[in-house]
């Protein structure tokens, strides 16, 4: 009997020579040391490139597709989809539901059922809603060789060949707000902004600048617990002076800088005006 081999369509640019469903993290790590090998997430972004992949590394057999709640926090496997992040009731009962809010505009439900947390966080995409959101939380990544490190540290590290195993989010009582501006509802953001208040101190993360999300702490305590308009305006000027914005096809640096101020102010007000606070 003749064997029919199905191949990819002509429009697909990336190629995969071998596909390896790894048995353990060590196998994934060893394979991932070669530059021509790639760990697969949801492939939504990867498939638009032109990479010739020698070994595609599939982690889907390692049970990393679960969100587990512990006493201290949540452990999110790197193969958890963005849709699972969005719909997990326990996770979204914390942090004012901002994790769901940060995912709901990412293309569509079908896309979010494909894209993974690991793909989004490990790649540290500039436009990443998830990275912008999680940087404002007490979040960590667990790397196979690198161990557990704060997400804030990981975000600034150069990309290496380690394996992202899980994202860990510690539970606390911080108040969080997540806002974006998009040209259309499901486009990547022109600017993304997470504001958080923890122990009476404020912090802001600005993503899609268009470069990688950047955290700014209100170290000098320009903002009081319930800041006045004057305090907010002063803080916004501080943000504009200390965070760099760039231009691309979606918006100019100047527009992004302006929007950053607007979203930051709205985020602060959203938190301070919440009922019961």
């Amino acid at each position, binding site marked *: 009997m003749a064997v029919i*081999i*199905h191949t990819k369509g002509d429009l697909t640019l990336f190629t995969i020579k071998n596909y390896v469903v790894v048995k353990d993290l060590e196998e994934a790590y060893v394979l991932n040391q070669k530059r021509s090998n790639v760990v697969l997430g949801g492939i939504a972004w990867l498939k638009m490139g032109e990479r010739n992949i020698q070994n595609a590394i599939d982690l889907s057999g390692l049970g990393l597709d679960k969100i587990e709640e512990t006493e201290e926090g949540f452990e999110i496997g790197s193969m958890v989809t963005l849709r699972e992040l969005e719909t997990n009731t326990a996770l979204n009962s914390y942090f004012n539901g901002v994790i769901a809010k940060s995912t709901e505009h990412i293309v569509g439900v079908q896309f979010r*059922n494909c894209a993974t947390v690991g793909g989004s966080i490990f790649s540290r995409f500039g436009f990443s809603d998830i990275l912008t959101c999680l940087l404002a939380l007490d979040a960590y990544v667990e790397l196979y060789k690198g161990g557990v490190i704060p997400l804030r540290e990981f975000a600034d590290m150069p990309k290496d060949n380690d394996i992202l195993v899980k994202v860990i989010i510690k539970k606390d009582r911080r108040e969080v707000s997540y806002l974006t501006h998009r040209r259309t509802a499901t486009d990547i953001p022109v600017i993304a902004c997470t504001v958080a208040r923890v122990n009476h101190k404020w912090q802001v993360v600005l993503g899609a600048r268009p470069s990688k999300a950047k955290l700014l702490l209100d170290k000098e305590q320009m903002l009081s617990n319930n800041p006045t308009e004057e305090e907010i305006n002063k803080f916004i000027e501080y943000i504009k002076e200390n965070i760099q914005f760039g231009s691309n096809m979606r918006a100019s640096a100047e527009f992004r800088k302006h929007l950053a101020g607007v979203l930051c102010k709205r985020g602060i007000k959203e938190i301070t005006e919440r009922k019961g606070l």
Partner: protein
Amino acid sequence: MIMEISLWLNNVFIKDNIAPDTLLLDYVRSKGCYSVKRGCETSNCGLCTVILEGKPVLSCSTLAVRANGKHVITMEGLQEEAAEVGGFLADQGSEQCGFCSPGFIMNVISMSKELKDPTLEEVKGYLAGNLCRCTGYQSQLRAVLNYLNAKKEAK
């Protein structure tokens, strides 16, 4: 490298040999499931929506090898339900060119199974990943709400 996969496509068990970079979109079309359309190829339009293990996914962004051991449903496997949704679309004149209809219908069916009594905002949110360049979405939205109401009343 050639990989052997086995899956259920519209509840028919298949064993096959594929190249590892075969997209699910190309694979199901090679099996005659022409309702699954290649649209934007940038994971944006929802035309290639299929249901993988009960969840709607973009078949243009899913490797066929990831369907190994799983159930894949295309509109060819949901003809009765698809015809019902299609009737509501036709009633509102919202099928128009029809190119986006299969992906849209697949996502409407997924939504009706996943969300119980969704609000208007939830419906809009769930269907936001299905782009249409004809209707302006209002007629589609009316059709979907009518479909959901009809299902509710039928219970």
